[in-house]
């Protein structure tokens, strides 16, 4: 077993330090070392999106990033999307549109949808489908997820327009 590495990073706005083995993925570190279990493992090979986090604002699958790569970076997980003031509009839209059934895919979808709306506030249905094609959901058939993202986008723009 290789020696553990000391990593200094920022997770959900908080300066965080952890020790990890070089072979541990960021997903494993988040879940087992830092204790943030909101990011889920569905495949561990980049194909389900359940582990999606923002890495310096970019959407990544955390199972394909090494824990040591987080050094000096800014990581946002599902636990960092809501604020003390309340839910993010995407989270609220998921609840109101019944966009989750079992909920295991939900963290990944919400983080991925945030990455999209941060960049493109008013995406088309097709654009949302394309952006979210890396996130698998086996329960919903995606219909209500797509509607939730469209709904969130609309509401966020209404707030901005005010």
């Amino acid at each position: 077993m290789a020696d553990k590495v000391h990593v200094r990073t920022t997770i959900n706005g908080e300066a965080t330090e952890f020790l990890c083995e070089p072979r541990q993925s960021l997903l494993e570190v988040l879940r087992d070392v830092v204790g943030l279990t909101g990011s889920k493992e569905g495949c561990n090979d980049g194909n389900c999106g359940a582990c999606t986090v923002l890495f310096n604002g970019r959407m990544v699958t955390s199972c394909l990033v090494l824990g040591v790569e987080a050094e000096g970076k800014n990581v946002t997980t599902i636990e960092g999307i809501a604020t003390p003031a309340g839910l993010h509009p995407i989270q609220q839209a998921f609840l109101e549109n019944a966009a989750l059934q079992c909920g295991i895919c939900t963290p990944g979808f919400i983080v991925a949808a945030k990455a999209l709306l941060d960049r493109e506030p008013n995406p088309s249905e097709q654009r949302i489908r394309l952006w979210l094609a890396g996130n698998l959901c086996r329960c919903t058939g995606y219909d209500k997820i797509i509607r939730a993202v469209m709904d969130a986008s609309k509401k966020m723009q209404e707030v901005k327009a005010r």
Partner: protein
Amino acid sequence: MTTTAPAPEYSVIGTRPIRHDGLDKVIGRAKYAADIQMAGLLSAKILRSPHPHARIKSIDTSKAAALPGVRAVITAADIPAVASDRMQDLGETAVRLRFLSSNVLAGNKVLYKGQAVAAVAATSAHIAEEALSLIKVDYEVLPPALNVLDAMKDGAPLLHEDMLMQEFGQRTTKHSNIANHFRFKKGEPADGFKQADVVVEREFNTAAVHQGYIEPHAATANWNVDGKLTIWCSTQGSFNVRSQVATLLKIPESNVKVIPTEIGGGFGGKLGVYLEPVVALLAKKTGHPVKAIMSRTEVFEGTGPTPGSYMKVKMGANKEGRITAAEVSLMFEAGAFPGSPVNAGAMCALACYNLDNAQVDGYDVVVNKQKTAAYRAPGATHAAMAVESVVDELCENLKMDPIDFRILNGVKQGDRRVDGPAFGKVGFMEVLQAAKNHPHWKTPLTGKNRGRGFAAGFWFNAGGPASCYIAMNPDGTVSLIEGAADIGGTRAAIAMQAAEVLGIPADKVTPTVVDTDSIGYTSLTGGSSVAFKGGLAAYEAAQDLKKQLIERAAKIWETTADNVEFEKGEFKLKPSYERKMTFTELAGRLLTTGGPLAGRASVDARGVGPAFAAVIADVEVDPETGKTQVLRATIVQDAGKAIHPSYVEGQMQGGVAQGIGWALNEEYFFTNQGTMANPTFLDYRMPTALDLPMIDTVIVEVANPGHPFGVRGVGEVPIVPPPAAVANAMKRAIGVRMTDLPMSPGAVLAAIQAKGNGKR
């Protein structure tokens, strides 16, 4: 959209409140099985067979056990001997105990690649994994039987040398991979075919497909020195896990407490145990809690898909469009152990049609593949692919509209299925009418290589035991305790039924799914049963509480209960109605007027209402690549009563999406050595958001008389029609009738070429 507005007599049922467990799930706080952490936790990994068929000559675990960090290694020898032929109920399927045992850890033989052989507990998952490579298993490799038709042949390699074929209810003396052959018959098909003006006969093959839940199996166990075993796991039935583990480990059920975590999808695949007995034994051996999480590849290779199948269907109809005879043969791959859902498939195959002359044969056949498990309306989707394709071809030959043909032949109340039972009140005709009137059906489809298909489907639905406990809180809310795993919003659906009875809003009910020590027996989340049976338990428990509340109000008013009326959350004193108390006011006074109140109920819900569904699908096939895109899909389904319409729609949409995946892409692709070549989400292609259109839903509500609100159950039937609907659409798009699933681009291209050569 619903065809009927929420019934005015209800104030909660038919509305769409935010589900109670939703918040934790959108902020990442909900705890699933892999999220369990505790002090001293060890990690377990499983060694799996590299061969589809082999005898285990010896297992040497000494090197693995000596690796620093390893705490225990176990094999089948550690499972208390269970040589029993007793059947163990898995909910939607059943299995012999000794087979369940060797599916958990293989005994003297491995019967599929991926079967568990040994397990290691270590201080980290990485060390446990290293240790697996140090276990030496000496195998004598045997020739495998890899598909249903080969396995049925005389002289095929036998999986279970001692297994005798069962035929027509009798045990024969024949050693065979055919575990069971049965037949349902009504009238005389040969006579029926004589009356037919058109006869269609086709053969079909379908590949095994996986339930594909996104959460891999995971389980944690702690075994205390007093013999009490606690298991945290992701399961569709905590009480089923309790009984399976207790039986396998030969310990009293009362010593086992199963704590169900949130469950990240199941669809039938999380009914039987895999990891639970293994982590329990490791916990006992190490004295530590032990957790195991499957990788995605282990989920594909080591847990049950739904069977691959070979099917033959022959149907005849007269010029008026009446079906005169039908003959169906279903041969299902059970996998390594008997128990495919061919029985259910055979009962569903012709259930949509009122037939005088029909026969269905079913064969349950073992092959060297994963032991199959239930998958959403198990068996019915296979059968519908075959039967609904042949029905479509009859319609083509007779130049009849597919919906009119089904209206003419479809079942109504009083009609008998081929396997015997008569239908009670069912909504098939209402479903067909709603489909016929839908704008999707009425709008012509234009464009090259496009076609529209239609198919129908049936599923029994199920009921069973359920328990519920409702306690009053002083602030006028209630806590509702229940025992059925909630995979897709059933906590809300059950809470809403209690709220309706109590005259309070849904958000005043706090529903919780609890462990097996904290609630009465509740059968599994399967058979589309939870909103039905759990709802009935909640209804009865709420009635029980309501009765006590009325008595308490009477006591406060110094009168008798018959002088108190309860309406819309308010207690009133008859006859003047001048004295009133709200639900909340009474709640606040309970502790000073005689003590707290709670309602309880344990039910065995039997008045099950079967479900029918129909799907309209528009496709476009690219003749250059063979790729099929579903352009539009509509599902019409009889829900009996939609308690929370959004989650009913969600079930319908999810079922259609899975059905489309089954139709077009998904398959266990086996090499001729019996290895699954695509055990990752990259190569086992489930539909993504980009592969699907919005899925339109029409909820038909023909109330089930066996439930106080008319609930039938909605989870399973929506997967049944889609593969046939897509196949029927493809026929109209490109003139080729596809008979094998999946209808992947390669298969479509080959079929187009074969047609060009005059073969189809």
